[in-house]
Structures are given as C-alpha cells and as structure tokens.
C-alpha cells in the first residue's frame, strides 16, 4: 500500500483553521448513505467535513453482503450460475462466463465454437448495456436529469436483445457447462446488427450532450485524478485504470479466453486519469464493443452449441484461476474442486471491491459535490462490492 498523501490544499486549509482557533467550528461528520441516491445502493461513506471540504472519507461496506462465496460450497456447478448472476447485476452474463470457463477447464471439456462466439457476443452486449447506463447516469449525478433517461432508453434496446436470446433481461442464467442452453433465435442476428447502429448513434448523442457540455467539463476535469501507479497499487482495474493511462485489458493481454484473440479491437486509454477521462474511455469502449459485436455476428460459425458432457456433472480434483475483463474491471474466480458435484471453495475477485478501495485516498481534500462525481465516475455496483 502506498503512503496516504494529504492533498496540499487540505493541509493548507487545516493550517488556516488552526490559526483561527476562535473561528474554528470543528469538523462535521456526514454519513453519505447507506441510503443515498448517489451510492447506487447501500454503500456508506463516513465523511469528515470542514465546511464543504472533505478531510477524510471512510467507505463502510457490507450492507449487501449475501455470502455468495460460502453459498457456492453448498451448490452444484450448474446451480452456481444462479448465484453469480447476481454479483454484478448489470452485466450478469459477463459474470457467468469466467465461472463456466473455470469449470470447463477443470473438467477438460471445451464449448463448441458457436457457443464461444455467442458467449462473446452476449458478453459484449452486457458490457454495452452496463456502459449505456453509466453514460446516462453520470450526467444525473452531476445534476443533469435528461441524459439518465436517454441512457435507460438506449439500454432498453440491448436488454431486449439479451432477453430475446436468453429469456432473462437481468439474470440470463444461459450458460451451461460445455456450452449454452439454447441457440440464438431466428432473426436475432439481423436484429442485433440493427441495434448496434442505435448504440453507435446513442454514443454520438452522449458525446454531444454530456461530454460536449462545458459545465460537465468543469465539474469533471481534474476531479478525482488517479495516477496510474497509485491506481495499480490499489488494484483498480478496467476502464478506471485505462483512463489513467495504463494500457491493460485482459481481453487482449490476459490468458486468451472466448474468441477475443480472433477479434480486431482497440484498447482505449486516456492520460488524464480524472473523472472526465473515465467517462471518455467508457464512451469509446461502448463504441468498440458495438464494433466487436458486429464482428462476432460476421464471423459466427454454425454448428452445435453444447459439447458432450455427462448428465451429472462431477468436476475432477484440481484448482484453477480464471480472470476476465468484465465491464467493471477484472473479474476472477479461483475454484478448488475436490471431485464432488459442487465446488469445494470459490474465491471471487470482483472489480468494484478493489475499485472503491481507493476512495479514502482519492476523496481527501475534495468538495462534497466532487465526492458524488468521483463515486459516479468510478462506477461500481454494490453487489459487486459486497458479493
């Protein structure tokens, strides 16, 4: 862990306050959350304030802890998908993939190519759905009501696609060990192609409406700067770290998974590391994902969608670590199997948990409104923090 650095502005402010002892009114402790509209759920921030300036911020987590790591030990492998769907509920499909990958690796089966391509498509679709919501909601958090509605509206198209293919809008539960439950329905590919056009248009609109807004720029530029090395040392991952100039994407740099090696895509980075950069990077990644989906539709092979697997799934003894690039960052499962129908122990590494760990460092010396901007730009899901 790096040294905790106090913002020089906050230090100067403290010194001023000490000089004017008779004017010193003492600090105010403000509880942001667990019920607060800006915390997307039940994150609690205990903020020590001097006026509107944050002296220290302490995130308190665990209000939504559901014990998924322990629960997996009492489920069979096919049952586990139902649980892990609910970790990051905005991109549930992307949560399923690494676990299935882990189980398949332990069993030595491999999903057939068509299943892999469909998995990739759906993963990218869930990334688009997650990011579209972010693109709108970030506007809401800095005070603009309208983009939020556009975000929800455009995400709806993508959710409809996911629903059409899997039957579930939020919790698809579509993966099976060795493949998928079903093939995509007839006409789905043409529909997806048309929707990607809508997504690309929506991105243009957000670029105009939100990124192009001067007040949005004033509120986000230079706010919540994460230097690349500090971010890395806290384990920040995903778009958050790419916005700090760290060119690291598990789809390209990690162990090859799904069909990403066969896709042609660019990993976007930004050098500033502030809230604006994080918004910018996510916007570009939404576009990139839409292009990747189009490539997937182009290259999708025909064939079966299930490999041959036994009726009752027993996973041989072994351990495996699988990590993937999820919308919120690096998601990983460490699965230990003792040869039973269910896992012996599962360690879930979720992105948001590490992403918010930087908050005490990041929030020193900012103003109260910036706290909200930073929280929104880090983009965490409570289920992904507490599991």
């Amino acid at each position, binding site marked *: 862990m790096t040294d905790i650095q106090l913002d020089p502005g906050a230090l100067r402010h403290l010194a001023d306050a000490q000089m004017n002892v008779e004017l010193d009114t003492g600090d*105010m402790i*403000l509880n942001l959350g667990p019920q*607060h*509209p*800006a915390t997307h759920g039940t994150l609690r921030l205990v903020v020590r304030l001097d006026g*509107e300036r944050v002296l220290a911020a302490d995130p308190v987590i665990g209000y939504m802890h559901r014990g998924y790591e322990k629960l997996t030990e009492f489920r069979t492998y096919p049952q586990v998908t139902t649980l892990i769907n609910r970790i990051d509920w905005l991109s549930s499909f992307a949560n399923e993939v690494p676990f299935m990958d882990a189980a398949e690796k332990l069993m030595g089966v491999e999903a057939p190519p068509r299943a892999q391509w469909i998995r990739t498509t759906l993963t990218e679709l869930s990334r688009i759905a997650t990011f579209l919501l972010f693109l709108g909601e970030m*506007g*809401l*958090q*800095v*005070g*603009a*009501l*309208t983009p939020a*509605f*556009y975000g929800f*509206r455009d995400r709806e198209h993508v959710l409809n696609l996911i629903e059409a293919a899997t039957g579930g809008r939020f919790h698809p539960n579509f993966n099976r060990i060795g493949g998928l439950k079903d093939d995509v329905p007839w006409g789905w590919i043409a529909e997806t192609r048309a929707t990607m056009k809508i997504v690309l248009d929506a991105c243009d609109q957000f670029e105009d409406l*939100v990124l192009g*807004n001067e*007040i*949005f720029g*004033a*509120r986000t530029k230079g706010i919540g700067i994460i230097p690349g090395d500090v971010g890395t040392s806290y384990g920040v991952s995903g778009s958050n770290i790419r916005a700090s100039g760290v060119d690291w994407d598990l789809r390209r740099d990690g162990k090859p998974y799904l069909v990403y090696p066969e896709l042609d895509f660019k990993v976007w980075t930004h050098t500033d590391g502030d809230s604006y950069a994080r918004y910018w990077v996510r916007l570009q990644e939404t576009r990139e994902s839409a292009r990747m989906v189009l490539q997937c539709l182009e290259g999708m092979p025909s064939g079966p969608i299930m490999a041959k697997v036994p009726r009752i799934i027993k996973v041989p003894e072994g351990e495996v670590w699988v990590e993937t690039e999820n919308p919120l960052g690096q998601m990983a499962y460490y699965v230990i199997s003792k040869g039973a129908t269910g896992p012996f122990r599962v360690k879930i590494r979720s992105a948001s948990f590490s992403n918010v760990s930087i908050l005490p460092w990041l929030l020193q010396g900012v*103003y*109260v*409104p*910036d*706290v*909200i901007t930073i929280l929104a730009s880090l983009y965490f899901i409570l289920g992904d923090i507490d599991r």
Partner: protein
Amino acid sequence: MIASLSPFALELGWGTTMAIKTLVVLAIIPAGALILGYVFLLKIMSHMQSRLGPMDPGGFHGWYQLVGDGLKFLQKEDVMPAKADRRVFAAAPAVVVLSTFLVFAVIPMGPDLVVKNLDVGVFYALAVSSLSVIGVLMAGWASANKFALLGALRAAAQLIAYELPLLLAVVGVVIQAGTMSLQGIVFSQQNGEIFGWDFIGNPFILTQFVGFALFLVAAQAELTQTPFDMPVAESELVSGYMVEYTGFRFLFFFIGEFGTAFGFAALAATLFLGGWSIPGVDGDWANILGPFVLFAKLMLVAFLMFWVRFTYPRLREDQLQALAWKFLIPIGFANILVTGALKVAF
C-alpha cells in the same frame, strides 16, 4: 374618454378593493405554480426526455396529476424531526411562500390592473423576492439535519452572489425607462420608439439584451434551478433544505418554488418584453387582454428558464461564485455604463 364607461372605473370602497386584490394574488400563486409545474415539469420535461409524462389523470394529458398530488400532500402525516426547532421549522415554509406572494403585489397586468403601483416597484420586487432565502435558512437550520444545513448554507452563499447581478441587470432598464415603477416601465416600453420607428414600441429586450441574459442567469440562481440548484442538489444533498419536510409543508415549498418561478418570469416579461402591452391595443381592451398577454410572454420566459433547467448539469458552489463575481457582475457594470452613456448621448 371611454374609461368612464369601463367597469374598472367603478368606485369601490378601499376595503372591497383590497379584498379583491388580495384574493387575486392569493389565487394567482398556487394557480401559477400548478400551471408551470404541469406544463414544464410534467409535460415539456417528459417530452424532452423521450417519455410522455402523466397521461391518464383527468382525461386530457394528465392535467389533473398535479392537483391530485397537491391533494395527496394535504392528507399526508405532518412529520417533524424530534430534534427540530419546532416553531422555526413550522414557520419556514410560510416565509418562503410569503415572499412569493409579495412579489405579485407590484406586477401590473393591465393599465389599471395592478395591486399597488409602487414608485419603487422594481426595487421592492427584488427586495421581497430575496426574503425566501431567510425561509430556506430557517428550514435548513431548524431541520436538525446535516444535509438540510448544507443546503441552506449553500442557498445563503448563492443569494449573496446572485442578488447583485440581478440588480445590475435591472438597472439598465431603469435608466432607460427613467422610472422604477413597473407600470411606468411598461408604459415607457409601449410608447417608446426605436430610431423613430414606433410601431411595436420599444420592448427593452431589443436594447437591453445583455441585461435580459444577465437577469435570466441570475434568476435561475435565485430560483435554485439547474445549473445553480446546489441548495437542493438531488444527487448530493438529496433535497437540501427540504429533506425533512413532508405533506402540507412540503407542498408550501413546492408552491414557493414554482410560484417564484412564475413571479420571476412575470417580472422578466414586464421588464424586458413589454409586460401586458401589445402593439395597437389601448384602453379597456388592454385591461381585458393584458393578463393574457402577460401570461403568454411569461410562459415564453418560463420556457427558456425550464429548458435550461432540464438540459444542463449542475455547477459547483465555488464555480458559481466565480461565475458571478468574475463574469456576471463586470458585465452588469459594463451594461450600466453603456446604457447610461447612450441615454445621455441620445
């Protein structure tokens, strides 16, 4: 003079006149708040956000929605926080609404339709409109809630920054009209001329467009609307100073918010768009048409205000102060200088 035949020339007793005037003002504020709330908050905002807004209540485009909401507020439990300063807590919404009512006393709706034609009308209107901040401070302090307190303090800081540009914006108009009476300002716009061409009179927006822009920006801050809605800041302070208010008292704040918007739109329409006057209408007809003309102009101004409200993100408190002191106030002074120089020159 046909005015002698006019029903407005009826000699009523002082008490009767006062009662009628009071009733009119008392009716205008909630009605105006409802109209603005319905037209802009419920319908136009919805359409800007690609949704329909309420469609069912009342049959036609959900016109009854806000009335129903108001009635709902009346039957809600009146919750008061245990640690609240009870008397101040109860008085705060009344103070906010009171300031709104007082503004309307000087706004003319026709040549004879004015509650009180004060010689210092502009000055009075701007002075009483800032009273609402006292109510906001009272609400924030008495709520015994940190979010409310933060919101109230922000509102107070905002008032100090924005009262000045608001006044400076109006000074240009006062210089041009040569009077502070709102009725006098309307008359001078009606009878004015631009380079000898007097068909439409001289709505001051044509010469005081800088003042108009300043007035709208400052009014936006005064009304705590986006981009200057830090005191209520939905995503940060939840609802700022209103956070502990429920039911009837919350309704007061709601009426205060939209009623003040109505008042400021009326003020802007009077100062810059010629108020109740339209070209070619005089005398009795002006008295009859005046309120409608004013209403139409007021809705135009309100549309501008609410359009901005639904589009922009929120500034930060320090950015707002910087905007006010570094840009708006210097521009306001420059506007006064130029107006004064031109007034002397022509």
